[in-house]
């Protein structure tokens, strides 16, 4: 019984949070659209539902807040009041309060928020807005006092909720990217549908709420199976070669190849389980932009596309902060003040776009603003002043690499970062967070046209395709995504321009680095670290990270292998250039290199494309 109550309370928290998340952007929409009965009804019903369930569970503060804001929503819906900014402000405040109350429930921290001032504020806002004061609700607690008998089913407050993923069987396959759109999540509050359109018919139970930990367990196991599969492939190859005409060896090869296919399918299936629409993260942005545009006094239009794109749950969890940070930066630093925009002949209202789409095995998130763009020379100058790079390095930098300065720890172009975009953390945090997801960030900027941030993140995080290479007798794995091509060149093909090794590939000059140097290990026989090597032939891996392109020289290419990333604790990937480790088909532990951190190191070293 307690278990079930616990489950119900967890359910309540999840459901209420979902509702709040869903309605928050609706407020902003409402403010823009003015009166919209459907929207109002939608919001009203969500508040109403939260109130109802909270009442059953005896969460009185939640009931009080929801009830008071519901009173306002009801009047708005019934056309007795007009939506005004002060009213929206106080209702949004109540959304924040509800969220805080839910957090306390979830954390089980026993902290009690004093909701009385807010309830008073809501009541005051209502009476201020109501023309006929006579019809005011006088008592906020009518009809909502909890029944004592709730205690009967409610002996102990349960543990905080374990998160759960809702697995939804897609009702229809659609979307341009070919990703199945999930059916409408079963929500307390209704999905936005026109009143007269019939609801989607659900046949039987199609949804199953599963604890994330269980799915992760399956994911882990799938990863282990991948490792075993890789080893088996190796072994079966060996037997096939060793016992060329042996029937059993052939059967083994066949069986293993079947296992290979099934394993890949399984991986994909498990991966899908963890995918959720990125909308979850984006829903808070309209509100954020609304609040921000008011406080920095800039009019901003936020346009979001591709919010149905599905990404891994881990991405959902870690992408929120970087996106928020970039968005704040775009509004705070990117967009010009209104008067400047008008002077430049731009529309007075600034525009920020967020586009999300899938590209191959990656999810791309673009944040574009139509602001003033970055001043590259100013960036360089500041970086030199702050001692982040030397004047010589600054001079060598191309415009493309210079924009990456903003990602350097301790860099901020404004003398005093405003509270909104700054808060002490710089854009380096964005880069770090995205790197944690094995992704990378690109920036492109044009003066007076705007700035675009492009975040590229792999669809899955646990299993990646890599290229196995060898230097000084040790194997390393390099993620396949950023690799453009591999080449074999002779030593004569390598030129040296102002101290930097370069190689010309189809008329394009590309900086070349020795992997041994990057990793700070001695190359065989010749450890002077100047990139020299005795052998006449060299294998070159061409890496392309956004606009940057560079080459890494290795001794040998071993082959392509799908590996499971095992994270190594206590390792700083930005210094070691190691992302994690994996166990290869032959049972050895191999480091996976962090190409984005290597690429970052190139800033100031590389002399361009």
């Amino acid at each position: 019984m307690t278990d079930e109550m616990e489950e119900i309370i967890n359910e309540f928290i999840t459901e209420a949070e979902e509702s709040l998340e869903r309605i928050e952007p609706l407020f902003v929409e409402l403010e823009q659209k003015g009166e919209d009965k459907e929207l109002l009804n939608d919001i009203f019903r969500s508040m109403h539902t939260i109130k109802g369930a909270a009442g059953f569970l005896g969460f009185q503060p939640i009931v009080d807040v929801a009830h008071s804001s519901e009173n306002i929503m009801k009047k708005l819906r019934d056309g007795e009041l007009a939506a005004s900014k002060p009213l929206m402000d106080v209702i949004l405040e109540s959304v924040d309060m509800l969220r805080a109350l839910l957090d306390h429930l979830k954390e089980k921290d026993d902290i009690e928020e004093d909701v009385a001032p807010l309830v008073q504020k809501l009541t005051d806002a209502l009476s201020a807005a109501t023309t006929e004061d006579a019809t005011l609700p006088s008592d906020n607690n009518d009809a909502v006092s909890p029944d004592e008998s709730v205690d009967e089913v409610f002996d102990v407050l349960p543990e905080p909720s374990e998160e759960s993923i809702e697995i939804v069987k897609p009702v229809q396959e659609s979307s341009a990217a070919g990703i199945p759109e999930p059916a409408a999540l079963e929500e307390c509050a209704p999905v936005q549908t026109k009143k007269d359109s019939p609801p989607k018919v659900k046949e039987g139970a199609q949804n199953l709420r599963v604890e994330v930990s269980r799915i992760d367990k399956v994911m882990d196991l799938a990863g282990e199976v991948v490792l075993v599969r890789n080893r088996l492939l190796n072994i079966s190859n060996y037997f096939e070669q060793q016992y060329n005409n042996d029937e059993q060896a052939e059967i083994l090869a066949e069986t293993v190849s079947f296992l290979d296919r099934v394993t890949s399918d399984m991986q994909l299936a498990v991966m899908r389980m963890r995918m959720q629409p990125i909308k979850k993260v984006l829903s808070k942005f309209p509100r954020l932009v609304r609040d921000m545009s008011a406080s920095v006094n800039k009019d901003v239009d936020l346009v979001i596309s591709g919010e149905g794109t599905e990404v891994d749950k881990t991405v959902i969890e870690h992408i929120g902060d970087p996106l928020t940070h970039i968005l704040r930066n775009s509004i705070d630093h990117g967009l010009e003040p209104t008067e400047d925009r008008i002077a430049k002949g731009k529309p007075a209202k600034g525009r920020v776009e967020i586009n999300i789409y899938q590209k191959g095995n990656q999810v791309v998130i673009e944040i574009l603003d139509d602001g003033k763009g970055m001043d590259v020379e100013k960036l360089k100058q500041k970086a030199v002043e702050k001692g982040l790079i030397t004047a010589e390095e600054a001079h060598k930098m191309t415009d493309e690499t210079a924009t990456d300065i903003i990602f350097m720890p301790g860099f901020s172009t404004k003398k005093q970062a405003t509270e909104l975009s700054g808060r002490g953390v710089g854009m380096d945090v964005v880069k770090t967070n995205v790197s944690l997801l094995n992704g990378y960030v690109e920036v492109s900027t044009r003066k007076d046209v705007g700035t675009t941030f492009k975040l590229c993140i792999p669809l899955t995080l646990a299993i990646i395709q890599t290229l196995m290479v060898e230097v000084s007798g040790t194997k390393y794995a390099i993620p396949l995504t950023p690799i453009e091509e591999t080449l074999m060149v002779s030593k004569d093909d390598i030129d040296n321009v102002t101290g930097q090794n370069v190689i010309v590939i189809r008329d394009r000059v590309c900086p070349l680095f020795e992997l041994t140097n990057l990793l700070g290990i001695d190359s065989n026989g010749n450890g002077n670290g100047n990139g020299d090597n005795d052998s006449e032939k060299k294998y070159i891996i061409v890496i392309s990270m956004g606009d940057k392109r560079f080459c890494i020289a290795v001794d040998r290419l071993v082959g392509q292998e799908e590996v499971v990333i095992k994270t190594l604790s206590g390792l700083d990937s930005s210094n070691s250039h190691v992302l994690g480790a994996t166990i290869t088909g032959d049972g050895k532990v191999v480091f996976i290199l962090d190409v984005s951190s290597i690429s970052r190191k190139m800033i100031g070293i590389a002399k361009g494309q």
Partner: protein
Amino acid sequence: MKIMIVDDCRTTRKLLGHYLKTRGYSVVYAENGLDALEKIGLEEVNLVMTDLNMPYMDGMELIKTLQTDPVLSEIPVLMVTTENDDEERDRALGYGASGYVVKPVMGDELANNIKSILQNTSNEGGVSNV
């Protein structure tokens, strides 16, 4: 005895379901009026407990629609809502609801309501497949 719980709120459905199950009833869930109409013919339901405010089809519409069917109109309906409003209560009872209770209702009050409604209609029994 089987009771259908019609509520658009997942938490409330579960909570009421739990409450009823601990009192020996079996339950079946629906998310709104339309969903209820779809499911009600599929199994024998002795009582419908419905919320008022729901998307697609609200509680009032559900009661009205049930009343138009000779078989389904025999199933008693108890409205369970946060609306503590005499007008709504009169409307619901006027349309044919057998009871009207205000959320949050639990414990003996709800149990007694259910018991008395079921007793009043016990002679007619439940409804089998339509």
